[in-house]
C-alpha cells in the first residue's frame, strides 16, 4: 500500500496550477457569466493540451484514459481556479460514450473531446438536474431519458443560476443515439464519474477559499492587530482545514474504486467523497465570507466567484441526501 499521489501526479497538479494561475481565470469566469465564452474556450484549449480531457478518453480514441485518479487530481486544480464551463459534463459524457460501446458514437465524439475541440454537456435528470449546464456554449448536449440516449442541439431559455458563471437551460428535442439497458448502465457509470470530479472540484474550491482567507486574516488588522490572531477566527479556519483534509483521502479512495469493477462498494465510496467534499467546500465558503466580512459580500472581489460555486457543486451530480442514502446501501 502506498496511499499517496506519486511524483508524476503531483507534478501534473503543480503544472496545471501554474498554468491556471497565469491564465487570469477570474477574467474568464466573469466573461463566461456575461455570455462571452471566448476566454473560457481559450482556457479549454490549453487544458486539452495539458491532457485533461484525454484522461477520460480511452487510447483507441486518442485518449490516455480512463484514469480516475489523474482526473481527480486535475479537477481539484480546476476547482481551485474556479474554471468555468461544463468540464464535469464533458468528461462524464466521454465516460458514457466509452462505456456504451457504440463505436460510431465513440468515434464521432471521443477524439474531439480529448483534443478539446468538442465541449459537451450531459443531462441525466434521473440522478441530477433537469437542466443542462451551459448548453448554449457547447457543441452538443447528451440527454439520458430512461434507457434512451439523445443528442440535442437546442435548449430552452437560459435560467440564471445563483452562480452567474453557471448557465442552465432545459435541453429540447434531439435525435436518438442509442436505446436499451446498456444506456442506463453507461449513464450510471457516467454519473459516478461526474460525482467524482464534482467532488474533486469542490475540494479544490474549498482549498482556494481557505488559502485566500488565511492570507486575508493575516493582513487585515482591527483593534490594532491582525484579525488572524483572534481565537474565534483561528478556530474557524482550523475547522475548515480539518474538513478539507479528511475529505481528500475519501476522494482519492473513490477514484481508486472507479478503476475497479462497478458495484455497490464503488458507489458507496463515490457517495462518501461527494458528500464530504461538498460539505467541506460549502463550510469553507461560509468561513471565507464570514472572515472577510462585508468586503466578502461584494461581487467586485474575485472571492465571490468561488463562494457562489460552493453550493451548486454541493448539489450537482448527487445531493447530500442522495449520497448519504447511497453510503448506507448494502
Amino acid at each position, binding site marked *: 500500500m502506498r*496511499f499517496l499521489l506519486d511524483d508524476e501526479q503531483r507534478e501534473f497538479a503543480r503544472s496545471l496550477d501554474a498554468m491556471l494561475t497565469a491564465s487570469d481565470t477570474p477574467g474568464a469566469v466573469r466573461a463566461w457569466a456575461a455570455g462571452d465564452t471566448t476566454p473560457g474556450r481559450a482556457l479549454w484549449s490549453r487544458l486539452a493540451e495539458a491532457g485533461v480531457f484525454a484522461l477520460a478518453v480511452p487510447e483507441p480514441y486518442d485518449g490516455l484514459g480512463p484514469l480516475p485518479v489523474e482526473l481527480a487530481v486535475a479537477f481539484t486544480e480546476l476547482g481551485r481556479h474556479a474554471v468555468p464551463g461544463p468540464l464535469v459534463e464533458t468528461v462524464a459524457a466521454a465516460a458514457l460514450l466509452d462505456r456504451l460501446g457504440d463505436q460510431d458514437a465513440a468515434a464521432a465524439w471521443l477524439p474531439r473531446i480529448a483534443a478539446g475541440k468538442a465541449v459537451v454537456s450531459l443531462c441525466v435528470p434521473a440522478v441530477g438536474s433537469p437542466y443542462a449546464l451551459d448548453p448554449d456554449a457547447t457543441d452538443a448536449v447528451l440527454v439520458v431519458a430512461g434507457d434512451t440516449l439523445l443528442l440535442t442541439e437546442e435548449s430552452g431559455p437560459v435560467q440564471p443560476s445563483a452562480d452567474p458563471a453557471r448557465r442552465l437551460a432545459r435541453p429540447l428535442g434531439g435525435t436518438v443515439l442509442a436505446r436499451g439497458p446498456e444506456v442506463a448502465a453507461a449513464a450510471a457509470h457516467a454519473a459516478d464519474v461526474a460525482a467524482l470530479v464534482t467532488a474533486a472540484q469542490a475540494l479544490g474550491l474549498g482549498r482556494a477559499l481557505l488559502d485566500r482567507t488565511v492570507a486575508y486574516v493575516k493582513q487585515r488588522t482591527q483593534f490594532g492587530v491582525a484579525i488572524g490572531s483572534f481565537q474565534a477566527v483561528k*478556530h474557524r*479556519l482550523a475547522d475548515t482545514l480539518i474538513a478539507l*483534509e*479528511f475529505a481528500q*483521502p475519501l476522494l482519492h479512495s473513490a477514484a*481508486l474504486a472507479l478503476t475497479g469493477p462497478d458495484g455497490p462498494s464503488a458507489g458507496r465510496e463515490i457517495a462518501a467523497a461527494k458528500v*464530504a467534499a461538498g460539505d467541506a467546500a460549502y463550510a469553507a465558503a461560509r468561513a471565507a465570507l464570514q472572515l472577510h466580512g462585508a468586503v466578502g459580500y461584494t461581487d467586485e472581489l474575485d472571492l465571490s466567484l468561488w463562494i457562489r460555486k460552493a453550493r451548486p457543486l454541493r448539489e450537482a451530480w448527487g445531493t447530500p441526501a442522495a449520497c448519504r442514502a447511497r453510503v448506507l446501501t448494502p
Partner: protein
Amino acid sequence: MDLDFTAAEDAFRAEARAWLTAHVPAVPLPSLETAEGFAAHREWERTLFADRWSVVSWPEEYGGRSAPILRWLIFEEEYYAAGAPGRVSQNGINLLAPTLFEHGTDEQRARVLPSMASGEVIWAQAWSEPESGSDLASLRSTAVRTDGGWLLSGQKTWSSRAAFADRAFGLFRSDPETGRPHQGLTYLMFPLDAAGVTVRPIGRLDGKPAFAELFLDEVFVPDEDVIGAPGQGWRVAMSTAGNERGLTLRSPGRFTAAAERLTGLWRDGADPSDTALRDRVADAVVAARAYRLFTYANASRIAAGESIGAESSLNKVFWSELDIALHETALDVLGPYGELSDEATEAPAHGSWAEGHTFSLAGPIYAGTNEIQRDIIAERLLGLPKGRR
C-alpha cells in the same frame, strides 16, 4: 497510488483474526475502571503478550513483532472488529514507550518495556495538576536534587487509572530559577506504592473510580528513572505528544468497528422513514472511513520517511468529534434503551453505548483540549499569528 495489501499483510490479518476469534472472552470483561475489571484486563494483557499480540509494533526483544505501522493498523482493525477488551496498558504503551524509544537509555528500555508489554506493570500518567491543565508548562510539582536521585513533592490530578496502576510518569519542576515555564522541567518515572505517595481515587463522570489524584511528599526517585536530561523534560514530553493526539492513541479500527455496529443497530431497529437519523448514521460511517483513509495516507508518509508533527492535531479533533457523533447517533437509534448502562441486565444486544457515550465526551478534553489543538492547527499548519489564549 494504491490501497492494496500484500499477501503477507493479508496473512498477518488472517493470523490476527484467527487468534482473536479463539481468545476474545465470550462474555465481556467487567469495566476496567473497577478493581475487579482492572485485574481481569491485566490478565487479558498477559494473554495477549503470551502470543506476542500486545505490542506488535515493538522490537521482538521487548515482546513485539517488529511490525511496520501498516500491520499495527491491520491488527487494530481486527482487534476492535472482534470486540476485544479495552487496553488497560494503553497509557504506558502509547505515551511512555514512544518516549523511551526516542529518549530512554538501553538500560531503561530493557528494564521497563517487557513488564509493560506483559501487563505486569500498568502505568498511569502524572501530567496535570489542579492549576495546570491546558497550560501544562505552568506546573508546580517539584523534583529536588538529593543523593543519588530526586525527591518529588506536590500534587498531580485527573490521572486515568492511577487508582489501580503500579507506576506513573510525568513532569516535575527541577529548576524553579529559569523564569521560563517550559524550562527547568524533568521527566521522571516513579512507583505509586512508594513512601510519600498518597493516591486518592476520584469518581469519573460515570461514577467509576477511574481518575485519581496523587499527593507526593518527598518521594525518592533514583537517577536511573529520569528520562532524557534533567531540565529537558518539556522537549522530551512534547516530542512524542503527537502519539497521544494522533496516530497511536486512537487507531481507526476503533471507529470503523463502532460505525459497523451503529449501522447494524440502525438497520435492525430504526424507523426507515427517519431520514434525519439516516443522514447522521451515514455521516458517522463516512467520517470513520475518512479517518481510516487519512491514517493510511499518514502511514504511507511515515513509510516513505516523512514525520508527522502538528498534523496529529488534525487527527485529535477529528476522532474525538467522530467518537461523540457515533455514540450520540447510537443513543438516538436506541431510544429508551440508550441509557441502559453496561451493568443493566437488559442492556442492548449490541453492547452498551451509554458507557461509551460518557467516555466519548472526555475525548475533546484529554490529550490536549480541542481548543488547544485548534490553536496548534491555526498557528503551525496555517501560519496564523499567536494571540492571547
